[in-house]
Every structure is written in C-alpha cells, then in structure tokens.
C-alpha cells in the first residue's frame, strides 16, 4: 500500500475544510470532544456556521460567544454536572433571540446521524408522541409502517458539510481507532461531506491492522488527520487523560459573566497560537489528569 498520508496540522486542516456558512459537527458524547478544533475555528474567525451536536457542551458555548454561529442543531444544551451554558442561554433568552434553534431529543439526533451514515433520507423511531417537540420543529414528522400500519416518528438525515472527530489514534491514511464511549463518532464520519480526524497519537498501520475490530472510521471516509495531544481537554480521552471537572465547574462563573467569558477567550483562544501553547501555559494539567493504566488484555486474530 502506498503512503497516501493525510497528516497535516490543525491550522491548515481547519483553513481547508471549514468554510463560512458551513454546517459543522464536532461530535463526541462527553468523551473525545475536540476543543482544539473549536478554538482553531474561533481563531480563524469563521462565521455563520450551523453548529450541530447532541450536547453543545462548553465548546459550542465558546464558539457561540465568539460569534461563529447563526444556528444550533442539538438535543441537550447544559454544562454536564455543573450548570448552564450561559452564552447559549443569553442568545436564547435575548428579545428577540439571536440564535436560530433546531431541537431534537438525543434519540432524534442519533437517528438523524444513522440516516446520514446509511445514505438514507430519513430514519424511523418510536418517539415524540405526546411531546411538544414536533410542534416547534417541523422536521420531526411521522411515517406509517407498511406492515403494521403503526404511526412512527421520522427525522431527516443529518449530513453536515464537515465533521470533526477526536479519537485515540489513527494511521496516516486515516484508519481511526476509538475505545471507551463511542458516541456517534463513526456515524458522524460516514454522514459528513468532509471529515477531519484529530488524534492523540499517530500509529503505524500495523498497530491498527493488528486489531481491525477496534477501527471505528475507515480511511476512505477521512480527508485529513491531525495529531493534537490533549486536543480534547477539558473533555477526556479514555486511556490518555481524565475529564477536567474543575474546568467544567469553573465555566459556570466564566460563562455567566460576558466580560469574564470575553477575557477567557482572549487569554485561552485568541491569546495562544495553538494547542501546544495552550497546554504549555498550564503544565499542571498533565500531572493532574493523566490516565492510570487499566489494560484491556489482548485477543488472538490467528487462524
């Protein structure tokens, strides 16, 4: 096999793959949220993005505060275990609101990505009956089962322009392995038009091929691979570093005060060149959050 390396740096990858007006999906369910890419998008001052994610989390609160987005497609917008996303709330509670919302339940977003990844225009699910969500979102519709006649909910495929997916490791061609919480990373990669994978470690193809069931994203779906250790902080990467819960708790006060939030962006996003500098300014993080060793054991692929 030829090298065909897709490895590049984050600045180049974001410059090439993320365009003003794009629908952008930085996925990762609490695990593997690529804050490094979110910050680079802020630094490159992308505008009018439609941001898609099940849980906007701090990364989209930061991007909303920085003015990157005009619309949010989501299913749960809180600060997990710590409070609110106040930039999000300010945009929603403004009169009139300054952010367009397209809102689902988690299952609805899951179903939308399943459809996108499967190349189907919609996905059926049993949900939304009795709730007010279909009243405020005309994209939640119904479909009748051609066998039982039962009326089910249906949601349209989500096919974002760009998906940005953090992972533990990949080879240079983009075969990407994930363990721990898988979220919707694989479906997001197959649903998107352009795919950027950001990993903690670049590994030799032989490492990937020794355990092919661990590969979540095939190279044929990947446009660029960026190696960015600690790129998911303050979220976590199983086997690499723990969630920085202190920062999630601290975000409550930072995001509540627009000026504090603005100062935070100046210091930690605009004020650093890249993730390397972000990490160099807080050397204690690695000490505090580095993962302990809980080995998986190994299995035999022989025959």
């Amino acid at each position, binding site marked *: 096999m030829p090298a065909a390396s897709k490895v590049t740096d984050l600045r180049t990858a974001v410059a090439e793959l993320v365009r003003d007006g794009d629908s952008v999906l930085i996925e990762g369910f609490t695990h593997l949220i690529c804050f490094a890419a979110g910050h680079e998008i802020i630094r490159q001052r992308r505008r009018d993005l439609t941001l898609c994610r*099940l849980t906007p989390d701090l990364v989209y609160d930061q991007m909303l505060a920085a003015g990157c987005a005009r619309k949010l497609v*989501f299913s749960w917008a809180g600060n*997990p275990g710590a409070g609110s996303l106040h930039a999000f709330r300010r945009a929603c*509670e403004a009169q009139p609101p300054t952010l367009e919302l397209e809102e689902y*339940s988690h299952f609805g977003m899951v179903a939308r990505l399943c459809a996108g990844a499967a190349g189907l225009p919609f996905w059926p699910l049993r949900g939304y009956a009795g709730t007010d969500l279909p009243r405020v979102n005309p994209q939640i519709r119904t479909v009748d089962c051609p066998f039982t006649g039962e009326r089910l909910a249906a949601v349209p495929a989500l096919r974002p322009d760009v998906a940005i997916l953090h992972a533990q490791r990949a080879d240079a061609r983009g075969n990407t392995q994930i363990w721990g919480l898988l979220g919707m990373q694989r479906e997001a990669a197959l649903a998107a038009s352009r795919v950027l994978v950001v990993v903690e470690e670049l590994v030799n193809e032989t490492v990937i091929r020794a355990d092919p069931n661990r590969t979540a994203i095939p190279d044929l779906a990947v446009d660029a691979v960026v190696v960015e250790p600690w790129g998911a902080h303050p979220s976590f990467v199983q086997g690499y570093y723990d969630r920085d819960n202190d920062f999630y708790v601290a975000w409550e006060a930072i995001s509540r005060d627009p000026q504090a939030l603005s100062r935070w962006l100046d210091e930690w996003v605009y004020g650093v060149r890249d993730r390397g500098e972000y990490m160099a300014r807080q050397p204690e993080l690695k000490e505090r959050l580095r993962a302990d060793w809980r080995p998986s054991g190994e299995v035999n692929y022989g025959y």
Partner: protein
Amino acid sequence: MTEYTAQELMACVAARELRDGEVVFVGIGLPNLACNLARRTHAPGLVLIYESGAVGAVPERLPVSIGDPALVAGAALVCGMADAFQGLLQNGRIEVGFLGAAQIDRWGNVNTTVIGDYARPRVRLPGSGGAAEIATHARRTLLVATLSPRAFPAEVDFITSPGHRCHGRSRRELGLPGAGPVKVITELAVLAPDDDGELVLAALYPGRSAEEVRARVGWPLRALPRVETVEPPTAEQLRLLREELDPDHLFLGRGAA
C-alpha cells in the same frame, strides 16, 4: 436519632424503588446516587445503563456526568449511542427509567426545555437529552424533583417528556409503550399517579404534613386514601452515602433535614 438531609432521604427512598436484577437507565446526580446505593444494599444485581452506551457499569467513583470515564472502565459492555437507544431502550429492554425534572405537572409530564414561550423563553433549559424517549419506553419511570409551585404547575410550559396524559390524550391513545412515571420523589413527599394518571400524595417523609406539600404544588393535590410515612434512612445507608458514594457531598447537600 440520626440526622440526615432531605437529599439523603430522597436517595434512600429512590433506592428502595429499585428491585434486584432490574435494568435501569440512569440519569446523573441523585438518580445515579440512588442506583449505586441500591446496588450496594438490597439490589446487588441491578444493571446500570447510561445513555452514553455504558452497560453494567460499576463506577469506582461518583460519576459527575453520564459520560464519565469511570462508567466505562469495568463495564460489562460499552456500545455506541445508536445501540443504546435502539437496541436497549426502544427494544423494550429497560425496566426503570430514572429522570430528574425542572417542571412536573399534574399528569406527570416533564418540562426540561423552556420556562415561558418556546420562541421567546424566559428561561432556556437544556432540553430533552435522552429524557423524552426514556419516558416513552422504560417500563416504568421514576422522577426526582424539588417541590415548589413553579416546579409543580398544573400544566407545564412545554412537554419535553410525556407523563400520563398529554394535551388530553392518554399514554394508551398515544401508543406509548411504558407505564410512565410511577413515583415522583421530592424532598418532602412521594407522589404517585391515581387510576386516571393524575399525581396524588402517596407518602410523606417523617414529620412532614400534607399541607406543606400542597402549598408547594400548583394544583389541588389530592391524596391516596391511606398516605404512607416513609422510613428514614438506616445508619448503613447514610454511611454508604456519606463515606463511599458521595464523600464530597456533590449531590447530597450539607444541612440536616
């Protein structure tokens, strides 16, 4: 007599609702605490499932989110979210759904979306997350919330998760597979649906009165013919909660009840 906080008692009351061997879809915070308390006492075979895809989790520390790495290490199975929602929840494998709530109304409908009008909200809440379909599919649902007239209106501002009657239609008419909320656990009392699905007073915490509860509920709260009194926490339950499950008092509160 042992002193305890309202949150501690809520955790114990919630734990008692869980039977050994049941499969529970767990929310974070008090639901998680209650499940782990049950697992450490009368229900060692309780199977904890989180919407993040962790099945049979045995967290060594109190998870701070439903996607905590401690839910993954040592779990029996970790799958993608499509499998969790489709293969486990929608496929009818979940016996108990355990949800927190910002607003609960007379029919057990839950609002976690907005206070006020959806298009012009006074308070924007996080939204459904997994709750809408947990409330739809779990064979029964347990709700946890703090009493106040704002939190317990006659009708919620927005139905995020269906209770027993939504805009006049019953669960049966809506085709909802699960039984809906069977208990609403608050800091003073436990509510439960009557035969029509209206929430009524089912049990009081020690020293609490029906009037205290009614003052905090936005509809004329009826009561079961015989209102039970909830057992206080045992010393062992309190020890587990305070020393092992939530030593930093993240969810338990600090004042005595």
